[in-house]
């Protein structure tokens, strides 16, 4: 039942495929200011095979959450397609989509209804989809709360009575209670302390094996991404600049931005201090992206041609099978 634009390889069924996905916002336009456009996501193509974890990393503001919202049908793309299990989501309804794809968001505060008890919040998807009797639903909610490490009494509390980390566990319970195929994790553990993070990452890995889940995992914590992801995509200013397997990216990053990112990761070694990676403060204005390669004004390797021509995201070695390919958008890699 795949749509015409899918080019799925029968050997590796794709849970998720993005085809030239773009999102443009229109900004401002008050009385004195002309409106401008901001291309938050630009021509992103990505394939995530079933059962894999695709890590998505990149500068803050580079468009990761916007990408996630398009996959969830929360924002419509300006152009391009999203295919879930080979089907385009443009013509699927929200409710049907929700059975297959569920989010765990970055921000555990605004994503939970403050007027509902935790049991109601976690059980809501079951009620919407009319799964089981109220009694069965309550049992499932209790099981789920236990799985994410919340005490029984939490069921009767309101989000406002919980700490940031406790609320994030609620959000995870709510996403996983429907046992979706694909989970979009947008910074799921950034509000958690490391011991809970370890439990949640273990839980995400267990559930992945048990239910064959596929994850798109957005995080700023590179050690966590390295632990979890099979493949990794690196974004800069709305575009993917490098994509490859975990080993390739962590051991031999090709794109200068990926290299800068890895060099800035802080390992717990007290004597090393904070590295100065020399990118400068000049994060570009996304509504006025630089010409040519978007990274060139900050790139230590930039040459004249970099400001003139944008490098394409191309496979380093066309002969490698798609599942092992590294794609890099740099004139010099």
């Amino acid at each position, binding site marked *: 039942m795949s749509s015409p634009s899918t080019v799925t390889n029968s050997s590796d069924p794709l849970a998720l495929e993005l085809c030239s996905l773009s999102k443009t916002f229109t*900004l*401002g336009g008050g009385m004195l200011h002309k409106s401008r456009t901001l291309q938050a996501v630009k021509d992103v193509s990505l394939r995530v095979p079933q059962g894999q974890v695709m890590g998505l*990393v*990149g*500068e*803050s*503001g580079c468009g990761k*959450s916007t990408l996630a919202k398009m996959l969830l049908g929360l924002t419509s793309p300006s152009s391009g397609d999203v295919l879930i299990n080979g089907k385009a989501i443009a013509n699927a309804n929200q409710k049907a989509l929700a059975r297959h794809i569920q989010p765990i968001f*970055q*921000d555990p*505060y*605004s994503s939970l209804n403050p007027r509902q008890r935790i049991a109601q919040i976690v059980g809501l998807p079951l009620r919407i989809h009319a799964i089981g009797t109220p009694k069965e639903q309550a049992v499932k909610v209790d099981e789920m709360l236990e799985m994410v*490490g919340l*005490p029984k009494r939490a069921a009767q509390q309101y989000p406002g009575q*919980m*700490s*940031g*980390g*406790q609320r994030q566990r609620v959000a995870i319970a709510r996403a996983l209670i429907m046992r979706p195929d694909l989970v979009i994790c947008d*910074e799921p553990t*950034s*509000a*958690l*302390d*490391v*011991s*809970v*993070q*370890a*439990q949640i*990452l*273990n839980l995400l*890995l267990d559930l992945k094996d048990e239910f064959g889940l596929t994850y798109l995992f957005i995080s*700023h914590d*590179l*050690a966590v991404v*390295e*632990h*979890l992801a099979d493949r990794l995509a690196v974004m800069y200013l709305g575009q993917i600049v490098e994509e490859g397997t975990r080993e390739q990216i*962590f051991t031999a990053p090709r794109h200068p931005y990926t290299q*800068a*990112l890895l060099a*800035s*990761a*802080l*390992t*717990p*070694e*007290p004597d*090393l*201090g*904070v*590295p*100065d990676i020399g*990118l400068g*403060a*000049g*994060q570009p*204005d996304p*509504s006025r992206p630089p010409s040519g390669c978007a990274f060139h004004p900050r790139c230590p390797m930039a040459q004249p041609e970099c400001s003139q021509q944008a490098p394409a995201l191309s496979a380093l070695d066309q002969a490698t099978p798609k599942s092992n390919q590294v794609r890099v958008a740099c004139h010099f890699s």
Partner: protein
Amino acid sequence: MSNLSSTERSTAPASPLLSVKQLRVDLPVAKGTLHAVRGIDFHVERGEMLCLVGESGCGKSMTSLALMGLLPRKAQINADCLNFDGIDLLTMTEHERSNLRGARMAMIFQEPMTALNPAYTLGNQLCEALRRHQRVSRKAAHDRAVYLLERVGISAAAERMRQYPHQLSGGLRQRVMIAMALMCEPDLIIADEPTTALDVTIQAQILHLLRDLQQEFGTAVIFITHDLGVVARIADRVAVMYAGEVIETASAQALFKTPSHPYTQGLLRCIPSPGKTPPGSRLQAIPGVVPSLVGKLHGCAFCNRCDQADEICQTTPPLHPIASGHSARCHFAHPLASSAQINTPEVVS
């Protein structure tokens, strides 16, 4: 007195910028009283970076809200001493408190959306933060806001000033919060997870900025974070909290080299360590859950999760000194006994 040289005078121990003794925060809840902060002691020197780490829900945010005078209305605060640069914070009027807030002590909140007003532009909010406390022109306030937005790495700052909070990514909002806290050049900044929403390159930039401020203006920072990598790289001293108490304090070096409380040791084992932890393998987590903070806690708060717990742990452990500036609230944390009793975690590298 006449022959007291200036060097002698400056080496006399100055009182710390902030000193906290036996701070308690209680919250009434349906089933009784929740003791969110249970008698903590700490101090912060001028220009010092104190990192506060600990389990989610252990009272880090409540501690900072207590210092800022921003606790929820129903919360009860008690302390033997809560002193900021000679000022007693406990007996201050609400009016004096709000004059201090923003001007001399500023907070960067854990969740920027709760602190930014969705109805006003960033420019309005940033300038208001300064003009409430200082008589400066609109232009001067605007210029300082633009300068600080640039310092926290926001491009096209003058234009961003006209945007509303919802138009920004999570990381941009957080940086606006940081700029806002810096508007009045405070003496103390309490930063509640200021960099968790940021990518590591921008995180590095913000950490450099905080370090610069400390060097330029002697700003003291209480930095709350879950990220042990950040702690290791920036902290002068670290206070580890568990269930509303400080259970270990040490310099960053000492904490990572010789963690002495079993909870601290457990924390260091939880983080995936590239090159050591096989990808996809199970991470070590600390089993069990934090005890309920409602009602009275008996004995060591960590004993239900501690693999070294003994009968003695049913009694409240004192804060044992381990070395100079290093102490831990554990019956087994003696300077000599520690290596024998407690298996130190693998050295993380």
